[in-house]
């Protein structure tokens, strides 16, 4: 364990163009691009499936099937096929992000359609019965009520992407994966372990950020804790 602390503790490892901070930045940028793209595809599709109930079986099966794809194999395939068609760094960046997007879509999609499907049917019926039209029902009722499950899907996709983005380094892109690959190449186990610890720590930090975000955007009426928190406060204030 000492070599791990030595490597993490050495200020020289943190700065510079291939220092830890830069790698964390790269890692976050790849992950963020991936998530934004995956969400832009999966959330509208998931909401549509949940709202209309159409193509549900097809989408569920494709999404589940995509989970079984071997990410590393897909990555090399994508680089081999798409790489020659693209100039410079893009030859690696585009296939890498493409593969990560494919990885991220299933949980986001599942969260979105399951979220909409889980919305109280009575509330949806009341919304229609009071004269909301399709998109009003979706935006005013289904979407806000689906948020907890939808953000849950986004959150687990984020964790998977951050963990898997280490693979990007294997096709000579940056990110925290570099430390794993370089460490192994130079038999520098401190660096390898350090890289692994950093990936795990980053995943946890991002998770905490997501939890905070969820607290912010999800209506308190949808979290059962609202009752207990209020109850507790009232209990404390009367004593």
């Amino acid at each position, binding site marked *: 364990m000492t070599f791990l602390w030595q490597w993490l503790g050495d200020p020289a490892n943190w700065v510079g163009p291939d220092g830890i901070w830069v790698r964390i930045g790269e890692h976050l940028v790849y992950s963020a691009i991936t998530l934004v793209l995956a969400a832009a595809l999966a959330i509208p599709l998931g909401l549509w499936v949940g709202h209309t109930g159409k193509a549900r079986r097809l989408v569920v099966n494709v999404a589940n099937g995509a989970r079984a794809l071997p990410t590393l194999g897909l990555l090399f395939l994508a680089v081999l096929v798409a790489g020659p068609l693209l100039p410079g760094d893009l030859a690696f960046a585009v296939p890498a992000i493409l593969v990560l997007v494919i990885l991220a879509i299933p949980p986001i999609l599942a969260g979105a359609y399951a979220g909409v499907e889980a919305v*109280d049917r*009575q*509330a949806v*019926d*009341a*919304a*229609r*019965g*009071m*004269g*909301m*039209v399709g998109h*009003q029902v979706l935006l*005013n*009722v289904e979407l*806000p*009520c689906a948020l907890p499950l939808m953000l849950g899907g986004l959150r687990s996709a984020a964790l998977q992407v951050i963990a898997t983005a280490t693979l990007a380094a294997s096709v000579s892109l940056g990110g925290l994966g570099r430390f794993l690959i370089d460490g192994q190449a130079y038999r520098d186990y401190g660096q390898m372990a350090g890289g692994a610890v950093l990936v795990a720590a980053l995943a946890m930090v991002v998770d905490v950020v997501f939890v905070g975000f969820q607290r912010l955007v*999800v*209506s*308190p*009426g*949808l979290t*059962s804790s*609202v*009752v207990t928190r*209020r109850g507790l406060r009232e209990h404390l204030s009367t004593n």
Partner: protein
Amino acid sequence: MIRFTDVTKTYPNGTQAINGLSLTAPTGRITVLVGPSGCGKTTSLRMINRMIEPSTGTVQIDGRDVAELGAAQLRRGIGYVIQSGGLFPHRTVADNIATVPRLLGWSRQQIASRTAELMERVGLDHHLARRYPNQLSGGQQQRVGVARALAADPPVMLMDEPFSAVDPIVREQLQDEFLRLQSELGKTIVFVTHDIDEAIKLADQVAVMRVGGTVAQFDTPAGLLRHPADAFVADFVGRDRGFRALGFDSGITIRTTPEPTIEVGASLEQARAVAGSAAWLLVVDSDQHPLGWLEMAELSGAVQDADLRLGGTLAVQGGSLRAALDAALSAPSKRGVVVDVDGQLVGTVSAQQVLAEAERLPR
């Protein structure tokens, strides 16, 4: 006025939900659709606001075929209350109530004052405005559902088993308040329930429906109890029909017997003097409001609250014969206490006297 004309609903799998329904729900009245599950009562209700389209036949509101009106536009003009409220869990009570006014584009100020007014009207404390539905009791949620349906002051209200998800005590309370509200608002209401007692209590008119979607009888509650159209209706209306029908014999002034009374604090001697040979003595307060009965044989000192036997119900003079009979049957003295509308003692009546009145009435 809502009018169904020869309405049928057949589903693609051949199920006949409604079969030749013709029915008129008059303006300003409560029309209750009642029947066993699968009789098409909810389907019928949902045809009024086009949540379900009839296969054949027409549904009209005030002479206009609903099929010719835009569904969303139509629904915004019809109050809609469903079982367990159907409240939006992510919105506060105030925001739930404001749903239709927002859809109609009311100003913020209009919405705020309307919301406050409605909460008071349905008996919700104003501090609940910022609560979420999961912080409310079942009864409170139901009140929010009613307030939400009333928000844009629609002339027509559709209510689908609105009180069936709450416990019996709260249900009765909600029913009483609903009747009070209706007496103030005079909406045209179509109300669906599977509970015949609820139907008889709330309705101006009841349509008893049978499985397959036909009306077995369309009548007033009293008519339903007195003259069930067939064996199905008689069975569905249930037992005690004759006794329950006494509930609709009201406005009769029963001849009462004057009752000697005493107040709490009177001495034993005073009580004995008033009671004479009677075994029971009625205790009233200084305003002549009956408090309870006193058993003379048990009395050993001054009259105290603790000596009172409660449990006897009170009948209002001019109220129903059912209430008068119940007062007589529930009183330990066997003398039913009759009061005026202000709750002051009029006199007492025996079960025999009430039955004599009932005998005189046509059936």
